[in-house]
């Protein structure tokens, strides 16, 4: 049996006195597309942020590609990860943010070439070739020289996706990537993800409020509440025949909107 690509083992996460996760277990197989749904404040985004090393953990362990993320293996057992280890582990992951977090002082193209040039030491020519390819993929070729403040929200997010892909991560984390968009701009962004899901063998972990999209794209849907997975399963089952009462209540409230 192959090892899961992502594995949370008895993870504990607190913000001060607020417990987010306690004895939290979760895993994702390679190539799997997993959607996380649930009410806000249930720890959905925190899960992604822990994986992207934006948030530490207080207990337990997280494995990515068979290696501990927040710890380093030494002859004397696991020790907390140092910068070098985190730097190495981050190569597996890419993240797209709810509020885009594009670099406002850089052109669209420069946003994408920054990391390949600085982190992977690629030449400007190489990095721009990657950027051109990705801009085509997200349909932004004609906006390459514009600045983020000249773009619509949907366009910004497409650049955000291209920027994350430039580092060729094995795992793509999508943190409510359409939540900050006007409704009419949501589809252009989701189309990009649909395309990615079809053409490439990414492992994708997405936190979303777009239920139809989650149903359409996912291999598995997890319903989160209060830092725990209340129910998980194939999208058809979750959306048409949820077993848990809390899932039913959440979906009912959502669909009636």
């Amino acid at each position, binding site marked *: 049996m192959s090892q899961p690509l992502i594995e949370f083992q008895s993870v504990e996460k607190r913000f001060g006195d607020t417990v987010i996760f306690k004895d939290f277990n979760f895993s994702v197989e390679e190539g799997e597309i997993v959607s996380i749904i649930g009410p806000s404040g249930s720890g959905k985004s925190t899960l992604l942020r822990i994986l992207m090393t934006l948030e530490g953990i207080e207990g337990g362990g997280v494995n990515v590609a068979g290696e501990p993320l927040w710890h380093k293996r030494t002859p004397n057992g696991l020790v907390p990860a140092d910068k070098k280890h985190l730097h190495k582990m981050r190569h597996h992951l890419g993240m797209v943010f709810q*509020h885009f977090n594009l*670099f406002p*002082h*850089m052109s669209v193209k420069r946003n994408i070439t920054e990391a390949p040039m600085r982190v992977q030491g690629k030449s400007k020519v190489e990095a721009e070739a990657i950027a051109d390819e990705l801009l085509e993929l997200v349909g932004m070729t004609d906006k390459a020289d514009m600045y983020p403040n000249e773009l619509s929200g949907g366009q910004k997010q497409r650049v955000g996706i291209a*920027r994350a892909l430039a*580092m060729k991560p094995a795992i793509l984390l999508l943190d409510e990537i359409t939540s900050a968009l006007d409704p009419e701009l949501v589809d252009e962004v989701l189309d990009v993800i649909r395309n990615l899901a079809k053409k490439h063998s990414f492992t994708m972990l997405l936190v979303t409020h777009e239920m139809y999209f989650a149903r359409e794209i996912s291999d598995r849907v997890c319903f989160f509440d209060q830092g725990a997975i209340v129910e998980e399963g194939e999208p058809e089952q979750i959306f048409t025949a949820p077993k848990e009462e809390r899932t039913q209540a959440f979906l009912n409230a959502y669909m009636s909107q």
Partner: protein
Amino acid sequence: MNGFDWDWQFTLEVLPTILEAAKVTLMATLLGSCLAIIVGLAFALLRRSGFFLIRFITYWIVEFVRSTPLLVQIFFLYYVMPEFGVSMSPLLTGVLALGLHYGAYLSEVFRSGIDGVEKGQWEAARALNLSIFDTYKDIVLPQALRPMIPATGNYIIAMFKETPQLSAITLLEMLQVAKIIGSENFRYLEPFTLVGMLYLLFSLVAAYGIHCVERHFPKEGITLK
């Protein structure tokens, strides 16, 4: 000689000497500003270090430098350091003292500028695996720069106006030269007035320059190629 009798002949006679000294004043300000910016940035970054001890020590150095008079620092560098085998020319001492003193002030300006950069920018940089160095150089500092310009400019003008303190260690800057001219000729009105006017002129020009820099600086920051 009593009352107000302005002597134009004398004014024109001493003007070249005072302008010559103005070069020293400007030189001290320019070099002092460069040093202050470097020192200020270094202090600001050290204040954000991951190590408590470094943050703690930097905090107290900055507090110490800000809370002691510039003149004491100038005297200390000029008269006490030679006892430890470090002697410097008046100009070098002045530049060092001004750089250190105003560097401490500027570190607070830089710190708040850096703090003003959105958290999401740091997170994006981290998600892209940029090193801390590249994060500061390419992402954070370019965006922090613009809000820092007015306060930095004010401190540089303040520094310029404090250069007369360097006359205390015999640096031949404008005021010192004016005083010498005055005592040699028993006329103080013209040299001191000239010095005052020159200070006013330079300050106004500098303030306007800073205003222009700020206005033409891109709102989003600048990109290194």
